[in-house]
């Protein structure tokens, strides 16, 4: 089944093409095509998992075909313990997002086609083992996102779409410079674009002259890569595109954005920035940790001030991705595993939050906890919508890190990892848990407690379709909270290899 990666990667693209051939009047056919495509893709990712050998740290299912031989560009794919959890997450979330987008009416042919295109590019990013291929997928991904936000978004969608596009594009351009530099630095031309060949940083021990000054190659281009990925994560101070994009994006796109696209940033660190520039990564670990720490606290504090529930959750993503940065900066076994696990767990829990907000948004067409004029937005949902409340509680407590749900174990691993290296940072970061609980519970109190208002009374509780797409996430959040071993087993060999690599440069 070595071609499994090809199937996973191109399945959504085939689905997209199929949708393009369906007349836009036939909405049911379009929806089911999208659903079946993503369902098959998800099953394929599970097959990938089933055939995956946990004990091997290196790439598996490798596909390597020359693409543009003159420039040593290969179509080379592979999956290891770091990308596999992300792959499964992507497969799952896109499938659920199609279900949640069932009620989209506005030019839905384009919508589903773009969503499927997005899925293909996301898989491409996670599978690519060739810099050129990686960059192509990384950039092409912006296109469907741009249109999905810009066309199906909220009232201020153009601004958000343009901002998202330009900001991340800026990061990618800087990253591209890094890629080109690495291309020319490679002694062996056949490896020039091969990401794995660059691991260990054997080609970067040199200086480079820019603007007439000599720079250490490994430092300057580490920061180039860093910028590209940090914008994607996003790490403070590159985070401001996120609230706009999240608030304006339609539900499914928010879910994908928070659940998958942000992880591409941290994935970039783990796949490219850290292993290729290990000296710089180790040397600058403290700066990365401090940025992560600021993200944790700053995101949490900003989240607490929000009256728009979607914006609140958007800022909470900044905070939670800060934990991932902390775990990566620790560069210990616990910290790194915790970071990758947190990437997965944040994907499920935050997806739950955004989907739940989408559910209530479909009924209320607003997202105010407190309206701008000071009156109450939602209120008393708990009494009126019990099913919604129960699922919301599961998602919320998973997100604030209640033991027994998934968020806790990854945060605990991250803290266990980082304490020994950066004690002071840990002490401050732990306070982020406190603020994290505060903004979520305060939001919960204002939205769910009290007597339901007239408006809230008019909402219907969740229907079966909505419950159906929440249940897999609930199950994931609970099962991996109690027993995270299945996910940890996938990643531990690959993460261990990375930790060993970095430990060599401590």
């Amino acid at each position, binding site marked *: 089944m070595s071609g499994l990666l090809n199937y996973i990667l191109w399945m959504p693209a085939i689905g997209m093409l199929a949708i393009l051939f369906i007349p836009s009047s036939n909405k049911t056919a379009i929806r089911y095509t999208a659903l079946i495509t993503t369902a098959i893709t998800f099953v394929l990712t599970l097959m990938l998992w089933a055939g995956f050998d946990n004990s091997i740290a290196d790439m598996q299912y490798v596909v390597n075909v020359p693409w543009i031989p003159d420039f040593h560009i290969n179509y080379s794919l592979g999956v290891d313990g770091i990308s596999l959890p992300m792959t499964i997450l992507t497969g799952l979330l896109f499938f659920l997002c199609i279900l949640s987008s069932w009620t989209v009416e506005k030019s839905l042919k384009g919508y589903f086609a773009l969503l499927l295109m997005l899925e293909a590019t996301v898989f491409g990013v996670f599978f690519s083992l060739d810099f050129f291929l990686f960059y192509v997928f990384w950039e092409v991904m912006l296109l469907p996102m741009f249109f999905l936000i810009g066309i199906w978004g909220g009232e201020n969608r153009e601004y958000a779409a343009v901002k998202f596009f330009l900001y991340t594009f800026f990061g990618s351009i800087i990253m591209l410079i890094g890629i080109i530099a690495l291309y020319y630095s490679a002694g062996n031309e056949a490896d020039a674009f091969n990401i794995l060949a660059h691991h260990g940083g054997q080609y970067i021990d040199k200086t480079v002259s820019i603007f007439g000054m000599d720079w250490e190659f490994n430092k300057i281009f580490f920061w180039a890569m860093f910028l590209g990925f940090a914008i994607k994560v996003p790490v403070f101070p590159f985070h401001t595109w996120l609230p706009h994009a999240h608030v304006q994006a339609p539900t499914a796109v928010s879910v994908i954005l928070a659940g998958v696209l942000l992880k591409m940033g941290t994935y970039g660190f783990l796949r490219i920035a850290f292993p290729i520039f290990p000296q710089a990564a180790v040397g600058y670990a403290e700066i990365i940790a401090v940025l992560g720490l600021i993200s944790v606290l700053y995101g949490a504090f900003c989240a607490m*001030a929000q009256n728009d529930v979607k914006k609140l959750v958007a800022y909470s993503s900044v905070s939670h991705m800060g934990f991932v940065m902390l775990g990566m900066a620790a560069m210990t076994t616990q910290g790194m595993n915790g970071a990758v696990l947190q990437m997965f767990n944040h994907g499920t829990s935050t997806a739950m939050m955004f989907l739940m907000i989408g559910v209530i948004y479909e009924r209320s067409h607003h997202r105010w906890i407190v309206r701008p004029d000071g009156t109450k937005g939602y209120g008393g949902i708990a009494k009126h919508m019990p099913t919604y409340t129960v699922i919301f509680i599961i998602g919320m407590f998973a997100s604030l890190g*209640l*033991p027994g749900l998934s968020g806790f174990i990854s945060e605990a691993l991250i803290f266990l990892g980082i304490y020994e290296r950066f004690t002071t940072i840990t002490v401050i970061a732990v306070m982020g848990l406190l603020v994290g609980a505060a903004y979520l519970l305060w939001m919960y109190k204002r939205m*769910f407690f009290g007597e339901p208002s007239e408006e809230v009374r008019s909402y219907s509780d969740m229907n079966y379709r909505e419950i159906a797409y929440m249940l897999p996430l609930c199950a994931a959040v609970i099962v991996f909270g109690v027993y995270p071993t299945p996910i940890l087993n996938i*990643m531990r060999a690959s993460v261990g290899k990375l930790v060993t690599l970095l430990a060599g440069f401590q």
Partner: protein
Amino acid sequence: MNYTIATIAPIFLLPFFAFVINCVFIKKIPKIVPWISIAGIVGAFFYASAIFMDFFSVYNTDYYIHKVFNWIDISHGENIFKIDLGVYIDNMTAVMLLMVTGVASLIHIFSSWYMKGDVRWERFFLYLSLFTSAMLGLVLSDNLLSVFMFWEVMGFCSYSLIGFYFEKEEAGNASLKAFMTTRVGDVFFLLGILAIWSVVGSVDFPSIYAAIADGAFTGKTVFGMSLATFSAFCIFCGTIGKSAQFPLQVWLPDAMMGPTPCSALIHAATMVAAGVYLSLRAYPLIFVGELNLFIAYIGGITAFGAATIAIIQKDLKAVLAYSTISQLGYMVLGIGVGSYNAAFMHLITHAIFKACLFLAAGSVIHSYHAKYMTEMGGLRKKLPYTWIAMWCCTLAIAGVPFFSGFVSKDRILGDALYMMVYSGIGAYSIPAILGFIGAFLTPFYMFRMMFLTFHGKNRNKEKYDHCHKEHLKWNQNVPLLILSVFTLGVFFCGSMTGQGIIKVAHQKLEWFKVLVEAPVGDGLNKFKSYTKQGFSNVDTRENTAMESSLYDSHYHTGFAGEGFDHKNEQAHHDLHHAHVEGAVASVVIVIFSILLAFAMYIFGWMNPNFFYNKLGFWVKAIKNKYFFDWFYVDIVIKKGLLRLNRFLSWFDSGIYDRYAIDGWATINRYIFKASHWFDRVVVDSIAVDGTAVGTQIFSLVTKSIQSGYIQKYIIALVGAIVVISMFLGF
């Protein structure tokens, strides 16, 4: 006894399965939900009894069970990282298990009466089962990490149950407050776990104890303080939050918004006691970290402060809430003054009588449909069984001799007195004195509560007539009566007074003192020989450690501050003195206090309002709960945190995003305007069009030259020749 997964796990799993099964059935067959919950906890009670009986029959302080299994293993190559979870049962655990399952069973049974017909009453049992399983899991845990996990789950259940009547605004506020306040302590607790992990490499109790015995903590510092102090402080912060100690006591009174049985179980008997249990487990660390004095102050202040607030409460449950805080303060004081055994004994005795008090209060409130004592009075005729049960517990909590509260509290006070008078550490005198004043206030407010509720004349005739006379019901007052039996001191201490003034001959009657031994000093070394066993490895060998230290009356009689090195004759003598003096003092104090209560509320010799009006500022402070709520909510949160948040949010979107990020767009706009201008004016108008103009001018000039007249050409030619010749130097 053969300890395998089948004999230990059901204690935790039966209530948990009850929770899971109830989750399934809650919509379909809500009627069976309480029965499944009750079945779960009663089943757990039988398993716990079996374990307790085993430990009681072995009767050895060094007897323990330690079973582990691997939870997380992310080792790869040389990078080893594992998290093992497991079960650690020693005498303390066995006692705790018996108490928790027993009290919880009775409370479950009582709830089936109390909650019947209430809104969402099935859901109540759901939370109750989840809570009980978490509490039992915590007690069984062999390590701090799983303690923390169950601890948080209990916090979640507490949150849900406080906010059980979520239609009410106050319930929402109270639940949020409870969760967040305890979370403050929890965050430190987590930090403590990290600090300990960094030294020991794991967080299971025997390993920690062994590490302390090895001196692993000595000489290490963090933030300028010793690592042992730091980690002990962090762990103790968990206790402060969960056990509602000063300065995080504010959440517990508000927690009374929840249904009364949940107050009995969670906010009196088990969860708040789990905080003290944690500190007891971490006692060697506290001891090595020299945190005792700090803890004694926290405990003393809490015991005293909460007791003063309890005096003026009108709400029946509020009196009990403050008395809970106060009694927890005694336990913490006990830890502070090193009376490990007595603190734990007080935890157990308090759990029983306070659970009973809360259930009785629930019985009163539910039957009488009022919660303020100002509307009650004379209820003993209507609710005789509740009345009897409540009196037993009142006598126990008041510290009347022969009741359990006296046995345990008095030993704490005796040790406090020892630390104050004989130890030579003067700083202990303040907590000790606060403790004794608290001991004076406790009987007073409890008797006041009893008198206002059950005695005197009734103050609300309508409700009184409406109230039915109580019959003996298996799920209403039978649990109360069972609990009230165990308020007798003889169950915990053969001498019944705590000080051994009156002794009963049977040796095993002193079981509590004998079996629960503080893990400090030389005793820590024994933990090095403790072995862990996997659950899969069914080993029937009982883990009695190498040397058995059977009951030695001389060695074990009521040590204050085990490890404070007063094994010598003089110290022992002093300790004995202190205890007898303490006992006498507290009996006198209790008598005076009770007399005062009689004088005010029964005989009417003194008017309480007189004192109420006279002590103006003091009363105002007490009424406002010493201004803690005001300080936390109005100052710290509203003026501090929320303003900071709003500022940051404004800065983020209004300043940083708008100028620093979108500013690039503005700069870009200027750049493209400038480049457009440059393009239009310089490049296009001047350079490109200018070239055209220049060409035109040039062509005009050249045009004029090329006139076509031959004579002009000749003139020009001649002129040119002349000029060139001059240049060439002719």
